[in-house]
Structure formats: structure tokens, C-alpha cells
């Protein structure tokens, strides 16, 4: 903003506080900007000094030096023959051999500090400096007269005393010259006054010959310009898109790791002109580039030009085009009773699912017999980790469903569903709860159960939640805590989508393997932790008791309410962990885990008090530690 039309300029702090110039963000003043130059958070400082010499624009990124990028029309220079036409490459297609060689700064005469004698300013010889080094000197120049020499081969001049005196003479006489030296090519000596970067108001000078819009940020990386991969500092102030890969050919790669290995390559070095620097770090930077299968990905120019053609990704699904959202008919909205009934059902289903997942987990042959060198074992471990995480998630959903019931003022449930909803239409819309090993068939069944419903037909577990969510959303006044409830339901649905993806990963990891290779077989290995059948029986009984105690603790805890019951819920979680340890002992000894609901059902049936539950857990703890000792595995 120049002075035109400005009548008042705030000077002191209260004036500045009172006087807000609309339209200019805080960052339009350099003194309040946060700037770096690799590549810069708000603007790139190098772009300011690019115009340090009036009439010329420089670029500082070349390794050979500070290069002339633009020469302004100027009568004095024209008469010398120093023009853009003759010295700079033209726009548009031109044979590379026709392009004139680039001009660099050879030396600069000018003061960089007040203590220096104005009659005898220092000379900086730039012959062997990279552009960035020259820039670091230019930014110290005082706003006084400077003299510069430009040439195409800055390193061929020898900066001896005679040369320095001669340059100083040019500075004193303010002489200008341009000639073609037979050996060194074109040499120009120019005099000028270092530009004022700020105008009187203290903002960037956009007057004639000054900065134009976009100048300060033109060399910065923006997320959609996709050059963050080349960034050396890994810091990004804003979210950036994931790698975009072409559909068929590329494999998705974690860009910090080589596939199949635990190591990661060292971070790429910050380079200003990659082809010129050959260092160990850079070599791995190039290796990183190769890793990413550059051919198959969109390359940088392609992405910059065509980013707007990429399809939208909604809810994790990339759409091929646009689609109108399916609308519910509004019919079949659940009332309060309906929601409570569905929540109760779904809580019991979550309970059933978590047991199925745990059982499936125990059916896998774990831990890998050969450790990290057992490739099949490693795959089974990966599959097992996924399954186990899903089981934990279902436990959480089981708890949340009960909390939702509590919020609606309805009774909670710790029951276990006998039938699990399917994605199929009636009469097959449910299947029986089944403790099954993780065969390929069972895996497919589990995947189907977690599938997202494609319409609001209410099929599948997801379908039930969607139905509940729809009913909450469409009847906001009907439910006191409708929004809160809806948030939790939405979260469960999202996690369900996550499970679906995880299960597909499990499928991929186990694909091609025979079931004998990844499932536990019946006969116990020599290394079974529990040697005697008696111990195995004890362990199985303990597992059931833990299971019941877990349910009892939840039952009492849920009954006490979200806040008051927290202590018991924690105990329930602890008992789950203990049960898990015992189950591992049983599984690794070749036996089956029944997850029987009947043992210690007395606790549940009799609605035990928290004291009784805690006491039962303590007894179990003692037995557990004894058993674990016998197994040679001290209980944690």
C-alpha cells in the first residue's frame, strides 16, 4: 500500500492498536513474519534480495553462483549493449546451444557495516561461491551505493590487488561498462544504490520496479504442489496429501521405510541444486526416489497441472466420479424403545464377536516358532495382531453400547448374542455364534459381518448402528442427549470400517497359506507350558471363572453408572488380561478354550455386589499365580 490516499499513519502503540488496516494480515509486515529459507513458513527471504540491485533480478539457488534472471529496460544500459535480448535466454522454444551462457555475480563492492570506511568499502569476490553464499553477503549490504561485476565465468578471474583497486576505482567513479572480453566472455560493471525493500509505511514496496504479487512466496512448497517429498526438514505446517499412486502398477510404500525391512534410509539432505552435489546422503535420497517407483506414480508436473482431476475421497473410499447420496426414506425411524432394543441387541452381538475374535486369535499358531527368521510365522503374527486389536475394539464397543443404554436410562446387558447379523437378506440375515478357528471360511464370515452396509436396509452389524444413527439424527428433539449418542454411534461405525480394512489385510497376509501352516494343531508341542492334564483342566476352569468374573464386574460396574462404576470396570479389564494369559497357556498346551458362560454364572445371576466380585477376582489371582509358577511363566 503506497502513500496515495493515506492521511494518517499510526506511530505509537495505542495508535497502532486502535488503527487496524483492513485487508492486510499480520504477516504482510516482514518484521512480524516467520521466515526461513528452507523453504520458508510464510515467505522465502531470498526473494527479497533477488531485487537488491535496481534493474536486475537474481536467482540464488544455482550452485555456481548468483545468477541474473532478468534485466530491465534501461536507456543507459541499452546504450552499452547490456540488454536482456542479448544476454538472457528467450522464452519459448530455442535450441539449447543457442541460449546464451548464464551471467553470474563476479564481485560486489559495497559496505556491509557502519564501521567500514565509506571511501574504502570492502570487495567481495564471488568466484567460487554458491548462489546461497553470495546471498548471505548481499543481505548484509547497507542501503548505499554498490558496484557489481557480472560475468559468465566468475571463477576465472583472479582477485588480486590490482583487480581490487580497479574495482574500487569503478565504485568511486560510478563508472559503468559492458564489454566482451575475448577470454572471459561478457563482463559488465554496474553501479547502483541498493534497493529499499520496504516503502515508507514499512511494507513491501510494490511500486514500479518493485515486488509483484506472488514474488515472496513463489519458491515455497505448497501442499498441493507436491514438492514436499524433496523437503529436507520434514516439518509441515499443514496437512499434506498422501502419495497418489496409479491404480494398477504401483505398490503402496511407506515412504520412510524400504519394504520388507525395519531400517529407514537417512533423511535426504537439503540441496539447492541436486544434480551438482554428490554426497552419501544425497545418494540415498536418489535411492529413495527410485524406491517410490517413480514411473507408476504421477510425476510432479502432472500432479501440479492435473490435481483438480483427481477424484474425491470420502470416508476412505475414492469415488470414480460423482454420485448422489442415498437418502433414507424417513420411514422406519426408530423410537426410543426401538433404539433401546437395537442397542441391547448390538451390545450382545459385540460381546459375541469379541469372543469369536479371541477364539480365532488363540487358534493361530503363535508365537512364531523360528522367531524373525520364520517368514510364515511373521505373517501369522501380523495376522494375529490385527485380530487381537479388533477383539479389543469390540470389547470397547460392548462397553460403549452399554454406556449408551445407561444414557438413555435403559438397563444394561452383559448377555451374549446367540446369533450374529449377516449381510444377507432373510432368512439368512443372521448366523449362529460359533467358536471357530480362523479358517479361511471363518475369516470370510468375519469380513462379511464387518462389511459396511451399502444402503439403509439395516443389514449386518453396521446396518443396525446406521439405523440407530439415522433415527437419532432425524429426531433431534426426541432424545435429550441425542447429539452425544450420535457421536458415539458414528465412532463405532467408523471403527467398524477400520475393522473391515484390517480383516482384508489379514486375508491378504494369510492368502496362499495352507491352514495347517498357520493354525495350531491338536497335539501339544514339546514346549507346552502345562505338562499335566490336571493343570490343563485347572487352567480351563480358571479361564471360565475369569470370564464370568469379568462379566460380573461389568454387570455391577455398568449398574453403578459411568462414573461410580469406573473402578469395577477397571477390575474387569484386569481380569480380561489375566484371562488372556491363562488362555495362552491353554492354547499353547494344545487345548481348547470354551468361553463357557455357565461357570460362576452364580455371580452374574445373583447380581453380586462389587465387594463379592472383587473378592472372587482376588481368589482367582492367587490361583493364577500358582498355576503360572508351575508353568514356568510367572504371572505379571
Amino acid at each position, binding site marked *: 500500500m503506497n502513500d496515495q490516499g*493515506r492521511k*494518517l499513519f499510526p506511530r*505509537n502503540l495505542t495508535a497502532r492498536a486502535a488503527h487496524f488496516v483492513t485487508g492486510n494480515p499480520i504477516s504482510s509486515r516482514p518484521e512480524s513474519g516467520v521466515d526461513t529459507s528452507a523453504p520458508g513458513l510464510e515467505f522465502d527471504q531470498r526473494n527479497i534480495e533477488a531485487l537488491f540491485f535496481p534493474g536486475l533480478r537474481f536467482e540464488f539457488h544455482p550452485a555456481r553462483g548468483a545468477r541474473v534472471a532478468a534485466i530491465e529496460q534501461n536507456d543507459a544500459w541499452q546504450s552499452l549493449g547490456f540488454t536482456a535480448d542479448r544476454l538472457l535466454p528467450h522464452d519459448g522454444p530455442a535450441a539449447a546451444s543457442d541460449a546464451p551462457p548464464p551471467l553470474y555475480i563476479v564481485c560486489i563492492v559495497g559496505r556491509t557495516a557502519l564501521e567500514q570506511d565509506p571511501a574504502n568499502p570492502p570487495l567481495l569476490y564471488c568466484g567460487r561461491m554458491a548462489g546461497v553464499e553470495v546471498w548471505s553477503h548481499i543481505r548484509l549490504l547497507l542501503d548505499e551505493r554498490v558496484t557489481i561485476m557480472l560475468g559468465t565465468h566468475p571463477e576465472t578471474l583472479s582477485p588480486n590487488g590490482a583487480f581490487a583497486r580497479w574495482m574500487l576505482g569503478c565504485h568511486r567513479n560510478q563508472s559503468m561498462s559492458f564489454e566482451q572480453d575475448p577470454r572471459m566472455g561478457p563482463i559488465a560493471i554496474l553501479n547502483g544504490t541498493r534497493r529499499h525493500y520496504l516503502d515508507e509505511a514499512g511494507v513491501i514496496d510494490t511500486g514500479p520496479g518493485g515486488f509483484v504479487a506472488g514474488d515472496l512466496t513463489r519458491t515455497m512448497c505448497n501442499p498441493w504442489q507436491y514438492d514436499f517429498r524433496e523437503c529436507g526438514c520434514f516439518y509441515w505446517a499443514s496437512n499434506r496429501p498422501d502419495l497418489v499412486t496409479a491404480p494398477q502398477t504401483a505398490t503402496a510404500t511407506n515412504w520412510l521405510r524400504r519394504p520388507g525391512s525395519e531400517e529407514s534410509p537417512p533423511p535426504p539432505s537439503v540441496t539447492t541444486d541436486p544434480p551438482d552435489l554428490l554426497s552419501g546422503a544425497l545418494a540415498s535420497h536418489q535411492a529413495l526416489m527410485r524406491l517410490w517407483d517413480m514411473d507408476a506414480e504421477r510425476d510432479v508436473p502432472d500432479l501440479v497441472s492435473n490435481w483438480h482431476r483427481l477424484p474425491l475421497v470420502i470416508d476412505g473410499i475414492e469415488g470414480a466420479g460423482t454420485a448422489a447420496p442415498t437418502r433414507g426414506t424417513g420411514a422406519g425411524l426408530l423410537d426410543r424403545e426401538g433404539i433401546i432394543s437395537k442397542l441391547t441387541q448390538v451390545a450382545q452381538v459385540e460381546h459375541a464377536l469379541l469372543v469369536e475374535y479371541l477364539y480365532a486369535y488363540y487358534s493361530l499358531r503363535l508365537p512364531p516358532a523360528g522367531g524373525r527368521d520364520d517368514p510364515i510365522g511373521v505373517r501369522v503374527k501380523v495376522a494375529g495382531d490385527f485380530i487381537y486389536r479388533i477383539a479389543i475394539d469390540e470389547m470397547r464397543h460392548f462397553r460403549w453400547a452399554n454406556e449408551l443404554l445407561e444414557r438413555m436410562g435403559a438397563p444394561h446387558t452383559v448377555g451374549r448374542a446367540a446369533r450374529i447379523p449377516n449381510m444377507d437378506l432373510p432368512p439368512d440375515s443372521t448366523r449362529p455364534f460359533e467358536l471357530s478357528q480362523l479358517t479361511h471360511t471363518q475369516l470370510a464370515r468375519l469380513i462379511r459381518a464387518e462389511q459396511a452396509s451399502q444402503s439403509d436396509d439395516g443389514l449386518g452389524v453396521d446396518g443396525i448402528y446406521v439405523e440407530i444413527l439415522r433415527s437419532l439424527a432425524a429426531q433431534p428433539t426426541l432424545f435429550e442427549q441425542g447429539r452425544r449418542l450420535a457421536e458415539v454411534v458414528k465412532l463405532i461405525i467408523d471403527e467398524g470400517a477400520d475393522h473391515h480394512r484390517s480383516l482384508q489385510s489379514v486375508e491378504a497376509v494369510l492368502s496362499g497359506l495352507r491352514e495347517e501352516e498357520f493354525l495350531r494343531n491338536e497335539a501339544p508341542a514339546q514346549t507346552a507350558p502345562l505338562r499335566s492334564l490336571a493343570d490343563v483342566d485347572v487352567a480351563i476352569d480358571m479361564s471360565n471363572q475369569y470370564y464370568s468374573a469379568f462379566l460380573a464386574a461389568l454387570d455391577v460396574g455398568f449398574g453403578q453408572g459411568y462414573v461410580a462404576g469406573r473402578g469395577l470396570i477397571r477390575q474387569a479389564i484386569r481380569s480380561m488380561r489375566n484371562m488372556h494369559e491363562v488362555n495362552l497357556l491353554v492354547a499353547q498346551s494344545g487345548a481348547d478354550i470354551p468361553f463357557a458362560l455357565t461357570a460362576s454364572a452364580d455371580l452374574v445371576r445373583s447380581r453380586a455386589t462389587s465387594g463379592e466380585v472383587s473378592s472372587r477376582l482376588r481368589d482367582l489371582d492367587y490361583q493364577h499365580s500358582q498355576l503360572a509358577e508351575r508353568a514356568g511363566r510367572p504371572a505379571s
Partner: protein
Amino acid sequence: MSAEVDLAASLFDRHPADLHRFASGNRQHVLLVERSEIYDLDDDFAVRLDAHRALGLTGAHRRVRIDDAPVNPRIYSISLNVAQSCNMSCSYCYADEGRFGTAPRVMSIATARSVIDALIAQSLPGTRLVVGFMGGEPMLNRALVHEATIYASNEAARAGHPISFSITTNATLLTPADARLFHDHPFAVSVSVDGDRAEHERHRRLRNGRSSYALLVEGLGLLTMRGRPTLLSARATVAAGDTNLLERLEHLVALGFDEVGFSPVRVSPTSELENSEFSTEQFTQRMIECAQGVRERLLRGQNCALSNFLTALHQIHFGTHRPYPCGGGASYVSASASGDYYTCHRLINDGAHALGSVHSGIDTGRQHRHLDRKHVDRQTPCSACWARYLCGGGCYHEVERRGRDGCNAIRRWLNFCLESYAELSTRRPELFTTAPGRNHP
């Protein structure tokens, strides 16, 4: 842009007392009195504005941003008059050689402790507190100064308050232990010294006739060589007819002071020493000349610590605007040797300014009445003066004893400071980027 246009247009409507025009170098400025906002004006606009005002076309509407809502101040600064007697008999002393018109008295450590306890008890958590030692000559009660400092440090630390100290002394009685105390605790030491030996001893004499200047220099030696206090400043009193302030300033800086402040004698037992109105103009002229010299040095990039000037510049930069001349009776009170509270250290034993005592507590009713009465908008001629929120109405002590006969001089001085601020902030903006953080009692 529209906000700016509105502001520019509104200047034409301002009441004359709410706007002040001044110039610096070749620029034109305006001070908006309400919030001490300073703007640069372009020349055309300045000409139009001045013409408008010269024709009397200004508005009658008074914008009032400082309202009459009573403040409820908490005290964070207190001075203890630990010794109302003095070993010197300076001719202009307002404290009448420390006697304040009554028999000399010395504060007991119990009283000091009670005052300190009361100060801490009524402060909000985490507030920075200041305890000052005044007199007479406070070092005549050396034991109390030491004990009270240590006591206050400990109690304040326990209560979670940062605390600092100040003392005004003639520096003729200092011992190495005193210098250590002023170094070990955050002390602002203000030494009363008028200039070189001749200037100093013209008015500042020891009772026994010895050279007070020599003793002072010794005392300074202790302070500067045994570990400096946080701040070592000179308080130079200027009596009627005293001139060459810049030389005095340089001499005092050479003696080793961090900063120098000049104070004209306005009220004293010997009336010929007071600056009469004519001499007040002279004093202001001398001060401006001195400050011009300081300004030149600042423009050359040298430091020159004339505290009257520097404080004014920073206050102007921050846009300080307040309806009182100081914190006296608001956030600052002074305790006499017997533990009675007064509006400030100059008004000890002045019944009209009694504000309670350490035994009965601060009398908030009297405090409010004091603040009510002394609000600058209720003073005449202050309510029509452009400088009112920078000046605040003038020192309570001076105004009550002498009336307001120095207003022209004050306006001249403030105008000079405004011009200087405009020039210095243009040519040496770095002077205003760090905030001064000292407490002045």
C-alpha cells in the same frame, strides 16, 4: 481503508482539548488525548485540519474513554520512613531535615514487619511488590534496613511474590555490608547528588561541616566496586538559578550512575530556593536544552540516561494515558515511622492525606475519596488541557502547597518530548522495541 477514513474525518470534530498538534523535523503529527494515540499526518491534511481548527469549527462533543468509575486499587508498593532524622542539613529539603515538622522518630522493626505483612496480605497472588526505604536518611536506621529487607524477601518468597526494593540515600554513611545488601537483593538505589563538588556542596551540607561530596564519592565507590545494585541512579535537585544541566548530567554519568534524574525544588522551607514561576520557565528551558543534548547523543547511537526524558519517551511510546499523576494513594502508600499510612512520602504527617495505619489497616473510604477528588477530569484547569492524561494533574504535594503555576512549563516540556519521540522513533526505532521494566517508587 474505511477505518482510516473514519478516523481522519473524525479529527475535524474533536474538541480542542482532545487533540494536540505538533511537528517534528518536517513531519506533522497529532496526539489524540484520550488514549495518547500519536499519528503522523500528511502535509495537506495537516494544513486543512489546522485551518479548520483555527476557524473554531471544531466539535463540542467530548469523547470520554476514561470514565468516572472508581478504581479499586490494591497496593503493591510501599515506602517505609525508617528514620525521620538526617545527618545532613540540605537547605531545600522538604523533609525539613527529616523532621517533617515534628520531633524526629525512628521506625521500629516490629512496625516494619507489620507493614510488610500487611502489604503481602492484601496483594493478589503473584503480584510484584516493591518496598522502599526513605527518610530523612534511611541509613541512620541501618539495622532496620537490613532486617526489613531480609524479612520482606523471605516472606514474599513464601507467599509467591516477586519483590524488589528501593532506597533514597545521601550515600555518606554507607558501609561494605550495606553495599552487599544492595547487591544481594534486587535494589534500586537512588543517590541524592546535585553535580560536581561545588554544585553539590552549595546546598547539601553535613551538619559537622565536613565535605559531603567526598563521603558521597567514597560511598559510590563501595556501591560500584563491591557489586552493583540492580539500578544505581542519581537524583539531582535543581534550585532556582541553577544552570548547565547537561554538564551536571555528564559529570554524574561519569561518576558511575546508570541514570540521572533532575528534580526542581518546588516546595522548600526556604522560599527563595523554590523555583518561582519565572524560574520554572527557566528550569524547563534548561531541561529542554539538556534533553536536546541527550537527544543528539541518542540519534548518534550513544546511550545517554536522562531519566526524566527517557521515561517520558517510553510512556509516550506505550501511549500511557491516566487520570492521576502517580500511584500515590492508589497502588502506593508511604508509612511513617510510627506506622501511619499517607498518600506518599512527601505527605508524611499531613493529616489531609492520612490513609489509616498498620494497626487499623488502610482506610479504603479515605482512599476512594482521595482518588475521587484528585481525578484529573475534575481539576481546573486540567479538564481543558491537552496534556492532562500525560501529566495527570501534577504532583499532589506541589499542587497543594503551590498551586498549579507550572502548567505552561509542563506543556512545553511534554511537547518537546512528543517531538523528540516522533524523531527518535523514526530514526532510531530500536530504542523503543524493548520495554523498560523497572519499578520506580
